[in-house]
């Protein structure tokens, strides 16, 4: 009886430890993805294509808020040629699925049209995958939010 109780306590402890370890690992991944999303916004504002290139997988599928599908090269060219100044991430939540993570949030930016500034907000979902010891973005999509 004592042996069975001990075995049960040991099993429960191991399970709790394993669970705690997973929670800890996920928290680490969450922090990493948040940092990468922040690096993305900063690199885009600086038009730092070298830094941006390192964040994306070569097979990136990027859907702009106007529905255009862009490759990695097309997205980088768009950033380089853009006259927009960049913006800020209004909200961001991360969901971790082992070696894959989703970053879901809202991005806001002030843009100019015909010399007049207006606020543009878009909701995005970015898919990050752990590949060759690093996290890379494999897909990104944005949808314009109503004004």
């Amino acid at each position, binding site marked *: 009886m004592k042996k069975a109780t001990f075995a049960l306590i040991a099993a429960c402890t191991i399970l709790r430890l394993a669970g705690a370890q997973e929670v800890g690992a996920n928290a680490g991944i969450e922090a990493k993805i948040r940092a990468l999303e922040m690096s993305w916004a900063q690199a885009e504002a600086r038009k730092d294509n070298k830094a941006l290139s390192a964040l994306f997988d070569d097979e990136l*599928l990027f859907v702009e808020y106007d*529905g255009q599908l862009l490759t990695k090269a097309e997205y980088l060219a768009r950033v380089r040629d853009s006259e927009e100044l960049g913006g800020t991430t209004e909200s961001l939540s991360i*969901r971790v*699925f082992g070696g894959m993570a989703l970053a879901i949030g809202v991005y806001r930016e002030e843009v100019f049209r015909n010399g007049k500034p207006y606020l543009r907000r878009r909701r995005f979902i970015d898919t990050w995958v752990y590949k060759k010891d690093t996290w890379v973005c494999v*897909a990104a999509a944005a949808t*314009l*939010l109503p004004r």
Partner: protein
Amino acid sequence: MRRQLNAALSACAFVCALNWTSIAQDSLQGDATRIIALENAWSRASETKDTKSVNNLLDDSFVYVDVNGKMMTKAEVLKDITDSGVLQVVTKSMIARLHGTTGVVTGTFRLEGIVGGKPLRQQGRFVDTWLFKNGVWVCVASQATGIAR
């Protein structure tokens, strides 16, 4: 003799590696085809309001962003399928990319139906993220974006 044996073993290893690469490639190709078939099944199930089938395709943590940027949970999406007047869902130009146990699909869609007695016609582009979980592919996220005219 030893050299011949080494050469034979090397050749064997090379052929095995080629076969393994070919098997892995076939498997990737197979998974991409499978995911696109699941996308088509999702469209058909939405048309027939078969929420049971859609339920099996979506992970419980599923998140959806519609063309207006509205975020919905799995339960909300299933309710929307039941309540909406969508009669036809046509998907086209699908591209699937596989990254281990993650699959990403993009394509265009066109919805047609009747809402509030008025004809509904909506088109856009979608990006769906699939995950290989417990031996099956499930969709964990889907986003729709209107295509500017």
